[in-house]
Structures are given as C-alpha cells and as structure tokens.
C-alpha cells in the first residue's frame, strides 16, 4: 500500500532527512520507526503525508505518487491518512466533540452522519464523559485519545503516529500503544515513530525499522 522506492529527501543538507530509503508497508502492517532524534523518522512520515517531497526516488501511497501528485490533490491524500502527533495538535478552543468532528466536516460528511459517528467513536475510546471538555481540561493521555479518535473517525487507510507517547506518562503511553495495536488488529496499517524501545516490545508482531542518520540500518 505504501511504497518507498530509493527515496532521498535531505532538505539541502547532507546531515538531514533520509537517504536512499526503500520500504514496503502493507495494508495491515504495524510498523515502528525507531532511532535517535534526527535519524529521519519524522521525515519518513512527512513524506507519506506529503508535507515534503523526495529529492530523488518515489513515494507511493495507494494511487498517489509523489512525483505526479498535484498540489490540489494533497488534501485528498491527507483525508485518507490519520495523523497523531506528540503535541496532540488539538484545536484549543473546541471541545472534544468538535475536535473529532472537524475531520468529518473537512471530508464533507453530512450533519446526521457526523453526529452519530463522533459519538460512537468518542464512546468507543472511553471519552464519553469528556465530550464537552476543552483540551486544556484533559489529561495528556485523554488528549492523545481524542487525537486518535479524530484520526480514526474518517476511516483512514493508515494511521501515522509521530512520537505519540513523547509527552505522556508510562501508563498513558501503554494505553495509547495498546489502542493503536487494537486499531491495527482491525486490519488497518499503523506506523509509529518512536525512540521508546520499551513500547515497541508491547506489539508482538510489529515490524521494526531502525534508522540512523537518515538511513535504514535494520528491518526486523
């Protein structure tokens, strides 16, 4: 489903980005990108949601190809990708319901569908009692759960999580990884960038791609 073919993206500096990456990610893979800061984990994720483009090589996500995609098609690609960030990226002035619903408004869903789907997803992630809370009233773990709900609700082909547990305590981190694993068990690809090796061990059948200085050092 996601294919990196000899991809280099260095942002004009030999010490940054990724170099000559070739990687295939299947429809139901759980993949960890591990490595120290600056190893290229986030760059690989950015290449998937086309926030940056390869200097050479091609990134292919379903029918979207990095060398052919038009600027106006990038939003369409992103509507097929669920994204989770270390800093949650929730809208601070909206409550939980609105933060989750925004994804569906962007994807032009109908009003009735939005209400039903949001409540279902919020309850599924045990956030029902927080539905009218603003992000500032939530714990770190709850915020990340809202971000997961927002990512999941649009039924994406893949979930990208960039250091999703970076700002969380160990218990919340485990909850988040377990939730992502559960999502993966429902036949959805999940890619998690992290430098927390303990978390990697919680997902038994995950693929682990180790990166260093922008290059893949091992795939387990």
């Amino acid at each position, binding site marked *: 489903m996601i294919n990196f073919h000899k991809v280099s993206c260095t942002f004009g500096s030999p010490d940054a980005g990724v170099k000559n990456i070739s990687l295939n990610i299947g429809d139901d893979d759980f993949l960890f990108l591990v490595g120290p800061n600056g190893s290229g984990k986030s760059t690989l994720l950015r290449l998937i949601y086309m926030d940056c483009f390869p200097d050479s090589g091609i990134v292919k996500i379903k029918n979207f190809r990095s060398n052919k995609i038009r600027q106006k098609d990038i939003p*369409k690609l992103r*509507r097929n*990708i669920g994204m989770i960030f270390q800093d949650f*990226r929730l809208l601070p002035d909206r409550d939980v319901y609105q933060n989750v619903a*925004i994804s569906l408004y*962007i994807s*032009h869903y109908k*009003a009735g569908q939005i209400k039903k789907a949001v409540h279902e997803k919020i309850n599924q992630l045990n956030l029902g009692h927080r539905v009218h809370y603003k992000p500032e009233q939530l714990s770190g773990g709850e915020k990340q759960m809202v971000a997961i709900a*927002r990512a999941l609700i649009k039924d994406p082909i893949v979930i990208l999580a960039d250091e999703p547990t970076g700002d969380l305590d160990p218990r919340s981190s485990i909850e988040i990884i377990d939730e992502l694993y559960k999502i993966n068990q429902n036949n959805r690809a999940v890619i998690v960038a992290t430098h927390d090796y303990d978390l990697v061990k919680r997902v038994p059948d995950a693929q682990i791609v180790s990166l260093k200085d922008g290059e893949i050092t091992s795939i387990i």
Partner: protein
Amino acid sequence: MIVFWFLIREGFRGLVRSKFAGAFTILIVWITLTILGIGYIVSRDMVNAVNSLRAQFDINIFLEQTANQQDIKEFASHLKSVEEVGQYKFISKSDAAEKFKDEFGKDILTVLDHNPLPPSFNVQLKPVYRNLASVESITSDLSKFSIVDEIKYKKNFLIILEKYQRAILYIITGTFLLFGFISIVLISNTIKMAIFSRRNIISTMKLLGATNNFVRAPFVIEGILQGFIGASLASLVLYGLSYLLNNHLQSIIQYTVEIDLPLFIAIIVFGILMGLTGSIRAIRKFL
C-alpha cells in the same frame, strides 16, 4: 450545504474569538469610513456649489448696429442648431435700453440723445459645455458671423471655477485613495496578527486534509463581518452627525446635510469590500 453553514458558523466564532484584533479591525473600518463619509459629503456639496455657480455662466453676443431683421433671424436659427447651446434670448436695442434704465435708473435717450446699445443674444450653454475649452471653441465659431460685433463672457470666472473644481477633484481622489489604501493595509495587518495567533490551527486543519478554500473561508467571513460592523457604525455616526447639524446646530452653522440611502449602502458595501480584501490579503501568507 452542511460545510457551508459550518464555515459561516466558524466565521462568526472567529469574530468572537479574535476579541482585541477583531475589535481593532472594526475600529479602523469605522474611523476610516466615517472620515471618508464626511469627506464625501463635504466634497459632494462643494461640487454642487461649484456647479450652481457654473449654472449662472452665460455668453453675451453683441451684434452690429446695422444688423437687420433677416440677419438676426438667420443667426438665431443658427444658434438653435448649435449642439452646445441650451437656451438663448434675443435682446433688441429697446430691450437693452430698458435694461439700462432698470440698472442705472436713467433713460439712455435722455442721457445721449440716441440709443447706442447694440442688439444682442444672451446664450446659456448646456451644463456639460460650460467649460473654458467648449466656450472658446463656440465663441470662435460664432465670431465668424459678419453680424457679430463682439462676444463677451466671464473668462476669469471660468478659469477660477475650473481650477477649484480640479483641486477639489484631486483632494477627493487623493483622500479616498490614501485612506482606502491605508485602511486596507491596516486591516490586513490586524487580521494577519489575528491569524498568526491561530497559525497552529491552520496547519492542523491542513494536515487533516482541509483545502485552502476550507481554511480561508472562515477568515474571509470574519473579515466581511468586521467590515460590515465597522461600516454600520460609521453609517450611524454619519446619521447622528447629520441629525445634530440639521436639527440642533442650524443657528450656528448654516449648512444642511443630506444623507440618502444610496450613501449608506455605498458605505456598507465599501466596508464589506475592505474586510474582504484585507482578510484575503492576510490569509494568503499562511496558506
């Protein structure tokens, strides 16, 4: 449709959220349109005053003493055919003597034993031709007639009038352009400040797959609302000032202000355009 209403709602929410920056934008639109409105009313009345002065402008064509009825008749029919001529009046020698008596209180025949006053035509041009260039061209043509002895008109009056009218036009245009430009720059900078504080929201929306139009729309709606509110306040102030002037200050200032519905509509439309232009200009940097 649901997206449309969502974006409208977002625009209103943005207006409430922007607080200080939003209030500042409204204030700028308000002040600018009040000044422009006053400027427009004053300049409109000045132009009207100049035009009413111009309406008094006429040309006197004095004929030869020897001009006979046939010559005068032919000349009159020529005047009738001249495009620029609005109306004309023939003043015979005896009419001129009457006029002399009215103005000086003495009969010219008793003063001079004969009537030296020539027959003449008093010509008023159509308003659009009451300018120096047209007048000079017309008088030059008319002076070619052999029965025309002399043509008189207030050339200096026309020169001064045109000078003032040009000055008024320059001042009005300059003021409008300057204030329009300054306010659009100020508005877009203020909106830019407001958008800057929400740049993370914009980038999140884009990561979620929002198109540029989806991100832009609430800010543009917010700008339009700010322009509308500022313009409405300016209209209220102008109405209040005109009411005060017309009803309570007539004894001090002999000036009646007329404000009609088209002016209010123009102010509102201008305010909306200012908000629209300012917000489109501001959001461009963040997309």
